[in-house]
């Protein structure tokens, strides 16, 4: 649906985006993850045709953005970081204007405004001036704007920025509901957002793609092993010894010990669930088991790992980002 090939954007001497390539499948929600200033907004602006690329190409539904911008623009709904609203218009006036410039047929305009207002929960403020609405409402009006033409592709730049927690959840649900009907790219620097909304993630740092994959896939790939946390009461050395002997366990490390209670980090082989065996081992030895849970490497950890080191330390820049795995094995 969206093909980005070797995209590069320079602002004078600064390289904002450097040789980025990735694809987005139809109906997919792709998360675009990276710290502020990583080049997320620039990439999105190039896809929408707002900026032109220095080199490389972007195709949306087979149309090249540089060569047939109007065809691409007809198919894209775009919500920039700051919702592009006119404060002196009412919500209805604004959506009508957007519909007109985006080519919604006059006869459908009213119906379409009703639909998107309903979907984005702005119908109750239809006749209020946008400038007098709260940030949350303005964001949703912006989203309604992006949906006006029922676009094939939706590009959302930090759609939950500046919203309160309740609104964030509502917006996420709304975006999730769009999958299937629309292909969505959403950018964010908020990690839980990605794991909760997106099927696939492109991690970008300093203008380069550093990893691509599903959120869990990334976790598994970068970690190389699973971790189970075991909290039990009993003599620590013996517990450790006992757990070491459970098949599938690589290493047991104490994490914290308070009085007679210890919390242990058990590293187990990848894709092997040994929780039941661990529980049995503890209980059968007569110790008290308080807690037992798997602890995946959080997306935060991965993100930090990907964006804070390794890149600068002599590792070559990824030539073919979608298949590479550019991260050191987890050190612990």
């Amino acid at each position, binding site marked *: 649906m969206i093909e980005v090939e070797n995209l590069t*954007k320079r*602002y004078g001497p600064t390289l904002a985006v450097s040789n980025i390539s990735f694809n987005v499948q139809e109906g997919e929600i792709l998360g675009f993850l990276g710290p502020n200033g990583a080049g997320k907004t620039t990439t999105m*602006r190039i896809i*929408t*045709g*707002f*900026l*032109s690329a*220095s080199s490389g190409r972007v195709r949306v539904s087979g149309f090249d953005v540089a060569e047939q911008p*109007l065809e691409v*623009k*007809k198919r*894209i709904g*775009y919500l*920039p*970081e*700051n*919702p*592009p*609203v*006119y*404060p*002196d*218009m009412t919500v209805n*006036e604004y959506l009508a*204007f*957007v519909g*007109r*410039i*985006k*080519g919604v047929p006059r006869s459908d305009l009213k119906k379409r405004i009703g639909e998107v207002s309903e979907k984005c929960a702005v119908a109750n403020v239809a006749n209020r001036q946008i400038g007098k609405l709260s940030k949350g409402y303005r964001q949703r009006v912006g989203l309604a*704007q992006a949906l006006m033409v029922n676009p094939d592709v939706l590009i959302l730049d930090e759609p939950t920025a500046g919203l309160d927690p309740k609104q964030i959840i509502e917006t996420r649900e709304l975006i999730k509901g769009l999958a299937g009907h629309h292909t969505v790219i959403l950018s964010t620097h908020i990690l839980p957002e990605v794991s909760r909304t997106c099927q696939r993630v492109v991690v970008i740092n300093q203008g380069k793609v550093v990893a691509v994959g599903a959120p869990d896939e990334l976790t598994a790939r970068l970690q190389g092993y699973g971790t189970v946390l075991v909290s039990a009461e009993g003599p620590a050395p013996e517990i450790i010894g006992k757990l070491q002997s459970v098949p599938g366990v690589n290493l047991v490390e104490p994490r914290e010990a308070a009085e007679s209670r210890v919390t242990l980090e058990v590293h187990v082989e990848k894709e092997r669930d040994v929780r039941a065996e661990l529980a049995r081992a503890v209980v059968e030895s007569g110790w008290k088991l308080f807690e037992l849970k798997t602890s995946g490497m959080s997306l935060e950890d991965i993100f930090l790992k990907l964006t804070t080191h390794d890149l600068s330390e002599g590792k070559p820049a990824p030539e073919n980002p979608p298949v590479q795995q550019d991260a050191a094995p987890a050190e612990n």
Partner: protein
Amino acid sequence: MRNILAIAGKELRAYFHSPIAYLVMAVYSVLCGFFFYSFTATYVVQSLRMQAMGGMGAPPMTLNDYVIRPLFEGVLSVVLLLLIPLITMRLYAEEKRSGTIELLLTSPLTDLEIILGKFLGALLLYAAMVVITFGYVSTLFIYGNPDAKPLLAQALGLFLFGSALLALGMWISTFTKNQIIAAVVSFAVFLLFYVFDWVTAYSSGTLGKVFSYLAFTTHFDTFAKGVIDLRDLVYYLSVIVLGIFLTARSVEALKGRV
């Protein structure tokens, strides 16, 4: 065309939903009204004096020469120096500041459609000001009998003159997010073009001719006299086209394509 009208309608609505349109029209009405009153009063006093002196073979004072023409020339400076920058300053600067430029440039519109739409919106507001001018002038027909024919040329001249400035002001507005800066720079540029023909006073060579040709005012003189001269028509139309072309270049540069 539908797209151009959609943009023009949005611009017009923005003018009338903010104080700008009312302010500009009110200021214009007051200044234009004062000019009109002064010229008419002067005319009345002087023509009475002439009558008292018995005329003595002097050519009769006409309303066209003593009221209408000075009015158009006077209005020119007011429009030129003050009000056109107020109309054009927001055209692009405001869109850039509020981020709505992203909406416009990612909609399936060509840059030219957006530019022409904005120009048309500003032009319609300006047209209302030209109509105000004629509101004053038309009262002369109640109390006197001025020659109506030159009015057509004068109206056309005023309209073209303002249009040329609108096009240039729009171009200047693409460079900044700050409307005040857009207005001040436009004001400076317009003032410069207004006084360019001063150069002829001290330089009679080619340079003087060039500057005199470039001056906005040189080309208004014939219109003010009630004559439509093709050369002046071409001049103003060229400035309009140039302004639109430069705006298009500048918008293109915004996208980083230059």
